[in-house]
């Protein structure tokens, strides 16, 4: 870029002090998308403003148009989207009518953005340091000579350890939290005055979420930046923002100060959102809207007679080792014969002598940060993965001794089922809802079950509250909540005794999450099941589980009754997990 262009950018971007004290003013913004089914209005008549140094939260569920609003502000809408009407002014510049080259100057330099899914937001085959340099050099913030030093400085600023080494890392070599720090570094590299964070912590665990948001808060405060935080989590938004606007179906339904909004939500939609947000002191039934129709429970199964003094699942001294991969080597090392130092460990112990029990009809939460071994543990209990040593006794039988590949045809397979994290990816895209639910009946049920499959699928759909008219639809024709119901119906099709729930609501909106959690609670009683609930969200675990197991580094850190553990955590680590949960202002009772 020529120096002239930079100067040009700087002069025109000097905000006009006379006109307004607001950095951004958006008036009656309407965004339309041209689709196969005609024109769809994604954002209608949205107005808001942001003062200098202010943090604005835009809250809404999926499809509310909150992300589209911010894309429109940066003019990075998809090719089929267009700003139909309204005004967007940034520091005196008319963003709606600005030329493409002016917009390119503004992006990254004046307004920048942090995205969700940080790993995908970075170029997978370019060193992260180079990606930082690209942005700085584009906007004249660094030259070829000093770019590397400046990139390392940035890495330091977002608190990355060993920035000199990390400069040479590729995104796949970094954890999700580290990738998000890099994305933040890219966003703040040219000291913009407005930072837009679009669901910046989705998919990160609570402690990383807190670290990332605290970092954003500090950096923006230090540089006097304004921030827009886009999120579906009202609790999170109110903990980090000065002011909130709530969007529903493309419209702003309410706008108020963060504390005010929690204390006196005016709009029914806001009230419903606040209600559905898991929080301290709220019962699982409190999450549902007051006017929600009570679900008609199907006939409760007669509780089976359980063997005395024997838990449903007893895990003893469970260990899982993974062989360590050889360190990544570059082509230039190709002709050198390298020998591994002998003292390097050759295995990684993901789960280390783990003991736990689940009683008949009990729900146990398995909690911990990513990488703590909770998924490995649940995969072993689910018999998808063979343990290195230890035993898994299920209903009196040591199923841990059965190789995972044979377990699929074992009679115990149907007794041990799973609900997966991503309701979309865990359904076969070529199966209708009916086929997905019937699949386990045909694979594991006897001839009697197979003959009876249609009636059973209908009953299962009833139980999970899936309208029968939706049974012939494919996954892409269903909403997130409906897909979650299909996943649950499939898992309970064969009357399992133990259901492993792997963050079943992580991908769902809060109001849908509230409904699904309640459904799971009802089904547990009706079908006399036990749950192993894997999650990083203690607030959600608390709603569903009587007992919690906290894992850290492959070991159990703490275990106990949920209420006791949460009100009086025994270890520093659990306290840290608990304090990382964003605490919204107390709701007016």
């Amino acid at each position, binding site marked *: *870029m020529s120096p002239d262009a930079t100067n040009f950018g700087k002069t025109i971007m000097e905000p006009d002090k006379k006109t307004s004290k607001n950095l951004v003013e958006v008036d009656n913004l309407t965004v339309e998308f041209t689709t196969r089914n005609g024109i769809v209005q994604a954002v209608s008549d949205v107005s808001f403003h942001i003062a200098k140094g202010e943090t604005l939260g835009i809250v809404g569920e999926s499809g509310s148009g909150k992300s589209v609003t911010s894309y429109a502000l*940066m003019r*990075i809408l998809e090719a089929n989207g267009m700003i139909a009407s309204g005004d967007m002014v940034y520091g005196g510049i008319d963003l709606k009518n600005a030329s493409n080259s002016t917009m*390119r*100057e*503004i*992006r*990254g*330099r004046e307004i*920048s*953005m942090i*995205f969700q*899914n940080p790993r*995908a*937001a*970075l*170029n*997978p*085959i*370019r060193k992260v340091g180079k990606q930082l340099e*690209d*942005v700085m050099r*584009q*906007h004249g913030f660094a030259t070829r000579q000093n770019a590397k030093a400046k990139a390392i400085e940035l890495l330091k600023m977002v608190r990355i350890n060993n920035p000199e080494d990390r400069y040479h890392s*590729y995104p*796949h070599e970094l954890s999700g939290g580290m990738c998000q720090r890099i*994305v933040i570094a*890219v*966003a703040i*590299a040219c000291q913009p005055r407005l930072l837009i964070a679009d669901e910046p912590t989705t998919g990160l665990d609570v402690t990383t979420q807190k670290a990332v948001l605290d970092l954003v808060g500090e950096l923006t405060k230090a540089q006097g930046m304004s921030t827009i935080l886009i999120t579906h989590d009202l609790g999170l938004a109110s903990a980090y923002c000065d002011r909130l606007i709530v969007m529903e179906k493309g419209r702003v339904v309410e706008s108020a100060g963060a504390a005010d909004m929690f204390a006196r939500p005016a709009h029914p939609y806001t009230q419903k959102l606040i209600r559905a947000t898991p929080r301290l002191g709220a019962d699982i039934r409190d999450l549902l809207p007051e006017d929600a129709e009570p679900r008609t429970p199907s006939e409760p199964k007669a509780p089976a007679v359980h063997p005395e003094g024997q838990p449903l699942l007893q895990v003893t001294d469970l260990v899982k080792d993974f*062989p360590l*991969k*050889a*360190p*990544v*080597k570059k*082509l230039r*090392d*190709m*002709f*050198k*014969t*390298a*020998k*591994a130092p002998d003292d390097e460990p*050759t295995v990684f112990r993901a789960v280390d002598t783990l003991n736990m029990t689940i009683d008949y009809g009990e729900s146990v939460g398995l909690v911990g940060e990513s990488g703590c071994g909770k998924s490995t543990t649940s995969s072993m209990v689910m018999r998808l993965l063979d343990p290195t040593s230890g035993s898994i006794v299920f209903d009196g039988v040591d199923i841990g001794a059965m190789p995972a590949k044979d377990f699929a045809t074992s009679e115990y397979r149907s007794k041990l089922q799973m609900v997966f994290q991503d309701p979309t990816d865990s359904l076969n895209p070529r199966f209708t809802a009916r086929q997905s639910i019937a699949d386990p009946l045909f694979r594991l049920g006897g001839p009697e079950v197979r003959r009876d499959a249609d009636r059973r699928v209908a009953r299962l759909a009833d139980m999970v509250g899936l309208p029968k008219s939706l049974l012939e639809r494919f996954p892409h024709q269903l909403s997130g909540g409906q897909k979650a119901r299909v996943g649950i119906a499939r898992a309970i099709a064969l009357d399992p005794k133990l259901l492993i729930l792997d963050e079943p609501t992580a991908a769902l909106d809060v109001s849908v999450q509230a409904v699904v959690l309640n459904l799971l609670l009802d089904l547990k009683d009706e079908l006399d099941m036990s749950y192993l609930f894997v999650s990083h969200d203690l607030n959600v675990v608390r709603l569903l589980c009587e007992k919690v197991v906290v894992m850290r580094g492959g070991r159990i850190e703490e275990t106990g009754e949920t209420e006791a553990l949460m009100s009086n955590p025994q270890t520093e680590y659990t306290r840290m997990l608990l304090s990382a949960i964003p605490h919204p202002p107390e709701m007016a009772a």
Partner: protein
Amino acid sequence: MAAPTSRLSTIARRLGQALPALFGVIVVTFLLTRALPGDPAAYFAGPAADAKSIAQIRESLGLDRPLPEQFLLYLKDLARGEMGNSISTGQPVAEELIRRLPASLELTFFALLLSLAIAVPMGVLAATHPGKPIDHICRFIVTAGVSLPTFFTGLALVFVFYYLLGWAPSPLGRLDFAYVSPPTVTGFYVIDALLIGDLETAWAALAQLTLPAITLALFTLAPLARMTRASMLQVLSSEFIRTARAAGLSGATVLGTYAFRNAVLPVITTLGMVFSFTLGANVLVEKVFAWPGIGSYAVEALVVSDYAAVQGFVLSMAVLFVALNLVIDILYTLIDPRIQLDD
């Protein structure tokens, strides 16, 4: 994998893993050539020969022995690096292949370079303007290129550029009679001539090469351009491109450094496949331009049941294919840090 092993031994192991496949190729080719109708002894003896002299020749060629014995003898020859003699030319097969392979390689390399130089920019343009006129024009060009048979485009090019315009030299082999072929270093006439500083010969060789290479390039445009377009479209819709745009990076950086480098991997895979089928299968182009390549050699050998020549050809193609795949895998690791050269 407990201890890290060096890249070199990984490559050696990869080559080692190819040995069973190569052995399979040897067995299948051996059996197939024997199963073909046609008697090499009768061909060798000529039309005037009687049954007795044919039997004599069969004996001298070793064709009267049982198949397993013939096979073992063939393996023994291979182990010594010999592929036997061609019955139609009387020359050792290995020598002829070594002489003809560079001709085919030079033609294929040059044709693919040409094809890449056109197909990749076309694919990128089409991907950045999907549904626009430029996209349709690219689609038309590649469809036309792949639908016209190579012997037709070849003849048409000769007709226009040699017969009508007189721009191209006569389509008779690798070098005009007026020139002496340069001393063999790489076997590529253009490069060898340049190496000894003989610009005139290099130019003449290049002139001979141009028309057949264009013919072949037109035919291979389609897979390369379509794959570039599809792969670019996919990469352009990915999230890191949105990040790059949101950071205000210029269009060139977004397209080149961010999009294209990520999109190039499937193009390389396609290139490898196109290369291997063009190398052995461009018989028609070789025929039209009297190009002394291995494709026409193999077809001639096949017609007269020249066992040793056919076997030698198939085996050398198999070896080339293994080497090519290895090169592509190494290229992959150079471009994408996520991929390791593992087995």
